[in-house]
């Protein structure tokens, strides 16, 4: 069996874990196990590896942890015990759970799966739907027009499923009409600013 970290060497260390009665196994080659052990940090007595190594089984264990369920693991790693950790700032999952605060912007990559769970509980989903970086804010009219288009697209899919091509064609025309309206709204919003910048040089 190949090592689940490097995928090159033969695995010689097999780690079993038991989470609430669910057993799973991860296999590592000796050098991977050592390198993890050397850089690792202990997590409340349990031994857990960085996210990049064991995408599957360990993360499911951490899911259980963040849900607050009983975590009873029989993981064995040679050397020091390790934890899920942000490679940029060194924040561990344990610290995050203790403080409730993240260490840096990269923690969002390191603890993505755990964060999704947090977000599902405390936010309105786990995906950003607001203004994107460096983007000018859209007016509420533009936003609602965009949402109208999304809903029409869903209607088209349904209509096609029901072989109601006439309605689908109508929705398509409606989408085109709204798209033109959005462009007009955008142009009328942009114009005053453009005026300012073009006059800027001469004033």
């Amino acid at each position: 069996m190949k090592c689940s970290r490097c995928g090159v060497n033969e695995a010689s260390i097999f780690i079993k874990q038991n989470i609430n009665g669910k057993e799973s196994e991860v296999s590592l080659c000796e050098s991977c196990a050592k390198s993890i052990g050397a850089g690792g940090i202990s997590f409340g007595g349990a031994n857990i590896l960085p996210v990049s190594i064991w995408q599957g089984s360990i993360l499911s264990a951490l899911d259980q942890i963040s849900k607050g369920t009983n975590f009873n693991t029989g993981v064995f790693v040679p050397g020091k015990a390790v934890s899920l950790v942000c490679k940029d700032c060194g924040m561990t999952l344990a610290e995050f759970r203790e403080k409730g605060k993240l260490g840096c912007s990269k923690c969002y990559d390191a603890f993505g799966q755990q964060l999704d769970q947090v977000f599902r509980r405390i936010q309105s989903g786990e995906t950003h739907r607001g203004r994107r970086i460096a983007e000018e804010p859209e007016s509420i009219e533009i936003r609602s027009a965009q949402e109208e288009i999304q809903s029409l697209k869903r209607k088209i899919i349904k209509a096609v499923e029901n072989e109601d091509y006439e309605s689908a064609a109508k929705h398509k025309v409606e989408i085109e009409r709204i798209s033109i309206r959005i462009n007009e709204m955008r142009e009328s919003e942009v114009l005053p600013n453009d005026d300012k910048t073009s006059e800027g040089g001469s004033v």
Partner: protein
Amino acid sequence: MKWYIDKGPESDVILSSRIRLARNLQGYPFPNRMTREASAKLGKEVLNSLKQRTDHSKGKFRTLEMSELGSEDKLALVERHLISEELTDPGLVRYAYISDDESVSVMINEEDHIRIQAMEAGLKLEEAYKAASDIAIHLEKTLQVGYSEKYGFTTACPSNTGTGMRASVIMHLPALTMTEKAGTVVEKIRKMGYSVRGYYGEHSSVQGSMFQISNQITLGLGEEELIVDLKKLISHIAEQERTARKQLSSKSPDLIEDRIFRAIGVLKYARKLSSEETLQLISEVRLGKALGIIDKPDEVNFNRIMSSIGPANIQKSEGRIMEPPERDKARALLVQREMEGV
């Protein structure tokens, strides 16, 4: 003119609107894991970018390095909602960048690297959002701002991730309080996923029937939607308050008049006033004005009193450190001046 002296739309019930946006820079740990050196470097970087802005609609800005201020000066800024208490912690190099009219302030190295806030009198969330997002967009274009395609703007606390936006409104709800309906209203607001706090923000209790209501969700909804939803809620509560006011004045006009004139009497003639008592009395006189029972003082006077009666602001205007009894005397004098002619 300072923004808080101004009178805004729906000011019979809504005192002020505020938008706060949180942003962080890539390549630096968040302030909770930052060294002092890194905080100084980041501070310079952010200030440099802010000073390059060409939009001067909010007037000039002043830069304050927190460690250079005396503790009273810092507290005075906290009382005027310009900075948070967290910004006064000496652990890191922290800055406040504040506009002339004090309607916009940028905190550097608070819980997040950058916290932009814009305030307006009355119900003006869109205007406040524009002022705050103008600065945010400038920073996003000139600095390496932390952003994830999936999660949006990254923040130290997951309760701010996404838009990084907290929109809040301070409402004056004396009639709902007097008729003991405020408790039920607050409970409902909380159940709908909004937070309710006192006039002085986080950790503060409700004084003078002033309630600060803000969104808790920052991820999964857009800024505009969040503002529209909050506005809907606020208008609904405002209508409830107006109805309760009408009922109060028609059911027990004598009781209400008595309370209002007693409050005026104390504000005009008391020789000592605590900030808590002043807020309570101002709340009652303000109600009297809204009900048309009295025509003076003007809302401008109320706003000026409220922005200057905090312990630190009293000491600042007197230019010295004072014990509480002395402050109460100074506060009573200040209020008397504002109540002249009432």
